């Protein structure tokens, strides 16, 4: 975005949302920082340092040990491509790759992934060229609103790496950890099928 549009009127929706999210994140941290009063107070949750190889870049991060990998990506690092759907491991919108394996980032503490490689939707394209799975989702029109799409795409990358089968039934089962409330499933299956044996 050109610098001369950075007025209130020039703020994009994304900038507005990111600014809003940062404010909320700060408020949430501030609310958590005072120690709990009274009996059975847990010991201080001292901040800890972790290192991630995030989309190919080494990142040293200071975090509250409670931080989930999903919240770290979205709130601390502004990588909002990874979506928070149910936040309880049921919808798959938060799917990322950890050392190439698909996982739900909402049910992981970021601390568990210290020293490991994480790939999000932002890190899938290489040198401006879309990943073949991204191309396939575009070609097959495998999305409507797009909210589940980053998770669907990363789940598909993981599915293909796992050697998942190419029949429609195997694809439906293999992609069953990713819900799409628009109901784009037929085209998602077609996209995965078009890639089978290529990734």
């Amino acid at each position, binding site marked *: 975005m050109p610098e001369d549009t950075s007025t209130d009127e020039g703020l994009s929706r994304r900038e507005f949302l990111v600014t809003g999210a940062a404010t909320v994140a700060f408020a949430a941290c501030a609310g958590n920082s005072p120690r709990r009063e009274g009996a059975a107070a847990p010991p201080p*949750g001292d901040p800890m340092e972790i290192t991630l190889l995030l989309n190919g870049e080494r990142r040293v991060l200071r975090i509250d040990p409670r931080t989930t990998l999903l919240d770290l990506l979205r709130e601390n690092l502004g990588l909002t491509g990874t979506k928070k759907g149910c936040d309880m491991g049921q919808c798959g919108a938060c799917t990322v790759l950890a050392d190439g394996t698909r996982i739900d980032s909402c049910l992981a503490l970021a601390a*568990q992934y210290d020293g490991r490689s994480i790939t999000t939707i932002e890190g899938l394209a290489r040198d401006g060229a879309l990943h073949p799975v991204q191309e396939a989702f575009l070609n097959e029109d495998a999305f409507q609103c797009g909210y589940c799409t980053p998770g669907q795409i990363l789940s598909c990358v993981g599915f293909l790496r796992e050697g998942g089968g190419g029949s429609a039934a195997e694809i439906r089962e293999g992609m069953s950890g990713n819900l799409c409330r628009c109901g784009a499933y037929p085209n998602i299956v077609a996209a995965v099928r078009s890639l089978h044996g290529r990734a």
Partner: protein
Amino acid sequence: MREIAYQRAGNVEDAVRAGSQPEAAFLAGGTSLVDLMKLEVLNPARVIDVARLDLSRIEVTTGGVRLGATATNSAVAAHVEVRRRFPGLCEALLSGASPQLRNVATVAGNLLQRTRCAYYRDLSTRCNKRSPGAGCAAQEGWTRMHAILGGSDHCIAVHPSDMCVALAALDAAVHVRGPRSERDIPFSDLHLLPGDHPEREFALEPGELITWVFVPATPAAARSRYVKVRDRLSYAFALASCAAGLEIAGGRIQAARIAVGGVATKPWRNPEAERALVGEAPRAEAFRRAAEVALQGARPLRDNGFKVELAKRTVVRALTLSAEGA
């Protein structure tokens, strides 16, 4: 989530020592514990990460296979010796959760996963598991998903695991390391019935860490199958399930293993149902009689009467598949 101290254990001894502290919990994949910590259903002050301990190997040993505590559900299900010797265990694992969850969920974590009872997970309702003595909202609540076997006036929460149903049928043993010694726990002794104390769920002492699960290889295990019935074809908890294995020679059943899931407060095994099959020809009538025995004592609740017949038919189906020796 409440504040935690996070610590990564360097070796098993360190893990046991750290896990012996008050309010400590072991963390492996996180799919169950992190979920319940976010809901503030479980509130450990110290989280001991054991995922990187050298406990993830799957090894063929004398008489069976040893599943490392931190081997992932995906790794176990994909292991060639596990597939060959315990097909029912593979089917159980692959019928559970989603690929993303199976990629991180571990053997030990699966053994220790908590119930999916909606009242247990909802802090605004009464639950004796969460708050001993508070009462059980499920008793007057929506009981479609609840237990018809093994419940008490204090708890009717269903045990959620598929893998555990298979391991119960296969006579597995759970090896644990404690502060002073190590020991083996027969699988059927690991999970406790709720009785008067639903908050006591496992026969584990403070600090005891599961290090592996031993699964004996038997002819019945090699023909084991797992059948799971649920509200949708994938990614749902069981309404009823059954792990079954038959050893058949000379047209007669020599040995039988049956465990039932989705209907009881722990993986449900009734040895009388297995004995009823020995010496019989592997036919539908014998399977139905065994299924009747397997569900003996079932007490349906207001919303789950359908589970009694559903579970019996599931048992018959699993026995039939095992007999066919697919």
